[in-house]
């Protein structure tokens, strides 16, 4: 009989980042992670040293820790998780 495991399908993060690297590089790096199908980044605010962006990630199995690690590797900081969608996925055991 299979087990139903919850998987994260959508994640929306509030991220503070320096100007470099640019948002398309952040989006590309996140999109290259396993389990992520698409990434949408919107610039919310900008000041002399930093930018606040909304990062919307859609995928089949998003690993939140890997996403956070990737974001921090680019010098950015996750301020908050604004939205999350979780679904049940059948796994055979």
């Amino acid at each position: 009989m299979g087990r139903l495991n919850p998987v994260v399908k959508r994640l929306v993060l509030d991220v503070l980042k320096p100007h470099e690297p640019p948002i398309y590089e952040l989006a590309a790096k996140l999109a290259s992670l396993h389990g992520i199908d698409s990434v949408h980044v919107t610039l919310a605010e900008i000041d002399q040293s930093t930018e606040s962006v909304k990062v919307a990630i859609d995928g089949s199995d998003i690993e939140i820790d890997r996403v956070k690690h990737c974001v921090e590797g680019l010098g950015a900081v996750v301020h908050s998780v604004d939205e999350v969608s979780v679904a049940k996925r059948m796994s055979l055991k």
Partner: protein
Amino acid sequence: MWGYIEKLRSYLRVSGVSSASRRYFVMNFFDGAMTMLGVTVGAFATGSVHPRTIIGAGLGASLAMGISGFSGTYMAERAERLRRYKKLRKAMLADLKRSMHSKAFRIASLWAAFVDGVSPALAAAVSMIPFALALVGVIRVEHALVFSILLIMAMIFGLGAFLGKISRENIFLSGFKMILVGVVTALICLLLAAI
């Protein structure tokens, strides 16, 4: 290998060191070329054109310029970039130790220092090629002198053209302006030797 190069490029892009490196390259390549022009013209003016002497003087000057350029630029760039990195950490309210920025500022300092150290040595090395050929008997010393000066002028012209391309000006005009500086330098050296 390609992965390392891509990573290096991303660190240099994030740190914004490309424009500073371009400036260091131009200034120091020019320094190296002009130093060798001075050595060559000075040797000609004093009548002691010995390939071994010129190569020795050139190597000594290249080494001194290279070491001084590398160490001076590394210390200056590191101080400036560390200041910027700390300012960024304050703005982000985060440590940034695991971020690419903590590596980028160190690599940027090393890269700028490398460019500053290598560029005068490169210019000097190219200028010495005719004398190296004269040393092994491929060409005569008199020809080596002429070829070396022509090579230096060609490098200076190329540098001027490069600057013209960057600033979107007439590359030939930029090149000739640089050659003018070289010609004036050579004339001053000849004048001083005559006195």
